[in-house]
């Protein structure tokens, strides 16, 4: 069995400012295994950075306990924790050249100059910053600075690596490249990693597990697949991959499947999810009440005519062509607006604003959640 590298128990952080109180992090529980990469996803201001800062020891939790490698860390100084931290605002040393910024940690560790140079150069190469080692941070572009911040930490090969949006200022190509490089390195060295990102595809592709936070609380923890296909709350469903949420009246309940009436159509059946937070015995769906149907834009087909009884008649509000796809905004008969993302195949018909169409939901990729 793998050792637990990090454990958060009821960790809470309250900021006090005059009369105002901000509950930035609220009873967060998390267990990270050694070598695992856990990404934090959540809206801006939901407490991701604060959580990371507490793990690093920059911030003292207002409550709860943080255990690293089985040890209570409360008394361990920051510099003895063997942690790497990529700051959201970089925190590069302005008075040091790029080289010295990256070499800083190695020097602190007492490594020899001979040993340091190749490591630094390698790290800079990894982030695509050859030939800048003599520049100062103020002479770098935003993305270059961010890469130096990354290189500075990567070169240390820390046991526990905390990264706060480390790739946010990089272009898509470079970001993709860095993603794989980070992942490779992390796997090779068995680094445990907490990774904050706003890029969902980054979270989904890189993570062993994803923590979805909202307003200081953890909404769901799970593998990318679980999170994506089995959201435990409407928030997660909505936040991750932009699901459409359609409230429908329940007409029948059957073991794991739920049937609801389609406005302007017949009925629609899909599996009914039961989030962990509900008791096993609790009844959460009721015939005659609403349930929320969650369906991803990619799981919707848009057709001119449809004989499928469970298809949703709709009107096109807008259609945008984005290269590989057509993004539709549709209005269902019950006035719910939904989005559909249809892969564009050449010669395909693009429906115009105002057209009356049918939306076909892929029932194997849609599910009900309590409304």
């Amino acid at each position, binding site marked *: 069995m793998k050792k637990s590298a990090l454990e958060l128990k009821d960790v809470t952080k309250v900021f006090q400012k005059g009369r105002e109180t901000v509950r930035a992090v609220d009873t967060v529980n998390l267990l990270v295994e050694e070598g695992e990469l856990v990404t934090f996803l959540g809206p801006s201001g939901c407490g991701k950075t604060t959580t990371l800062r507490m793990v690093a020891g920059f911030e003292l939790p207002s409550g709860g306990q943080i255990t690293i490698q089985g040890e209570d860390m409360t008394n361990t100084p920051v510099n003895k924790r063997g942690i790497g931290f990529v700051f959201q605002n970089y925190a590069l040393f302005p*008075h040091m050249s790029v080289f010295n910024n990256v070499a800083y940690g190695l020097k602190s560790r007492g490594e020899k100059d001979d040993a340091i140079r190749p490591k630094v150069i390698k790290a800079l190469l990894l982030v695509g910053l050859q030939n800048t080692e003599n520049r100062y941070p103020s002479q770098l572009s935003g993305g270059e600075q961010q890469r130096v911040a990354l290189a500075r930490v990567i070169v240390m090969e820390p046991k526990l690596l905390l990264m706060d949006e480390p790739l946010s200022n990089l272009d898509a190509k470079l970001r993709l490249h860095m993603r794989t490089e980070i992942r490779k390195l992390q796997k090779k060295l068995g680094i445990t990693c907490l990774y904050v990102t706003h890029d969902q595809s980054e979270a989904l592709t890189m993570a062993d597990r994803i923590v979805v936070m909202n307003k200081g609380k953890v909404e769901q923890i799970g593998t990318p697949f679980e999170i994506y296909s089995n959201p435990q709350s409407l928030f997660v469903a909505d936040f991750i991959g932009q699901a459409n949420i359609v409230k429908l009246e329940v007409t029948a309940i059957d073991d794991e499947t739920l049937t609801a009436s389609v406005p302007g159509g017949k009925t629609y059946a899909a599996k009914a999810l039961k989030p962990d937070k509900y008791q096993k015995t609790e009844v959460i769906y009721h015939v005659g009440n609403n349930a929320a149907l969650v369906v991803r834009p990619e799981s919707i087909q848009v057709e001119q005519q449809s004989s499928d009884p469970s298809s949703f008649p709709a009107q096109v509000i807008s259609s945008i062509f984005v290269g590989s796809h057509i993004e539709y905004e549709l209005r269902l008969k019950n006035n719910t607006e939904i989005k559909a993302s249809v892969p564009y195949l050449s010669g395909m018909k693009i429906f115009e604003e105002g057209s009356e169409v049918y939306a076909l939901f892929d029932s194997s990729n849609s599910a009900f959640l309590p409304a």
Partner: protein
Amino acid sequence: MHGTMKRKSLSKTDPALFFALVTVWLSFAVFIFLPLIRLLLTTFIVDGALSFTNMKKVLGTGYNIRALYGSLILATAVSLSGTFLGYLFALAVTRTNLPKILKTLLGAVTILPLISPPFTSSISLTLALGPNGMLLKAFGIGDFSIYGFLGTWISETLTYFPVAFMVITAILNTMSATLDDAALCLGASRWRMFRTITIPLSLPGIGNSVLLLFGASLADFATPLILGGHTFPVLPTEAYLLITGMFDLRGGATLSFLLLVPALLVFFLQRMLLGNKSFVSVTGKNGARTEFARLPSALTAFIAVICSFLVVFILYLYAIILWGSFVKVWSVNNSFTLDHYLYVFKHGQKAISDTLLIAILSTVIGSVLAVVIGYVAQRKQFVGKRFFEFSSMLNYALPGTVVGIAYIIAFNQRPILLTGTLSILVAAYVFRYYATGIRSVIASLEQIDPALEEASLSLGASSIRTFTHVTIPLIIPAVLAGMRYLFIHCMTAISATIFLVSVRWTLLTTRILESMTELQFSQASAFSMVLIVIVFIADAIMLYLMKLSTSKFHKSQEISYEKVGA
């Protein structure tokens, strides 16, 4: 269409800068260059012809060469030791978790040596450490001579380290704490963090403090005069002696001009070492608000020991003065009396009110000038910038006596007839002591990301508004440090003003000097105590006003969402 190329003129692209430059250059012309040039002419024009015989004469004597070395050694030593002590005190105030009240006390004690005119502290220093000194007796130390390099060095260090303290405190306060976090997180020990982050980032403060102390020590004639003895000559003292003792103004001026060489050297050395590095740690992208990391415990202990020792020593020196001001006859008749204070209030009233008026005027004018000059020199690009910056320091680096005489020569004739007026005193103070303000403003600005000012400009704020609403609030600690220093110096300085006080305007320090000459140690002590109290009150008021103005700036806005229909 004109065929000529469009030339951008400063008056159009940046009218505020243009105006500021013109004003400042004009003031330099009148209050720095005019006196200096007049003095140069007096010095080197003999019978209508250029002559360097003076130069040859004063440089011909080995004693003056010794004095040059003496000056250099002393200035170097004082600038290093003073900056070191100032740094330790600044660390104590900004990086330790001493109770706030102790920090305030520390700050107050620190400015004591700055407040008293050099001779009072020198006297109590000799009473303590001089021949048969009380402290020496108490510790049974026999053969120790305070006269010479050692005494001068100790006394000047004591007098000037507060300057370092103020400049460096301002820097340490504005530094970004996230960088501490980053360093620790990269595995640096607290020592290493201190060595590689804290110290280098405070280099602008250290550099400017060294520059200031070097200049101050270079120009100080009073301390070596009392404590230097004959074994340790320094240039400003020799110059003073030449002028006032040998009535040789030319020789004295020549010696003083010699002082400009090392001053210039240090100025450019400092520029060279700090010039092209970036110290920007205050940016518009904020890390989380975080505390500065603690210092290594050994360092904290060291700071605690040194600071307590120094504080006790300073308090001891001033206790002597305090005691002296309350006894009938110092060490003869030690019965308590208020006579000296009565004397001070009876005969010193005019001096007190004159001094206060002059100090307040000078502080206001000087601070404004210092901030403008510091800002322009650090932030703006224009032709002759280095020269501009150095010019502003000229009066500071020259011995006060020389500046004083230059002022008399320059302003005793039409068209600028100022001798005997308030303005000449104010001008002398302003252009001499605003240097601290300039340097600390420059040091502070080096930490602040110019993007903040760009942001303000791009939001349509004029460069003046940007200056007052963005720049100033960000460098307020530095401005405050400069103001305090200026005020204190206006209250206490003597060297230049000895030539500028007049029958109409008299100063507290000249009264203290007079009491000393009249062998009235107790009266001098009483005057000094009154001076100290006044400065403390003024200092408190200044701090309070500053808080008031910044908190008004920061006043929170109450908003109702309902009103806007949100």
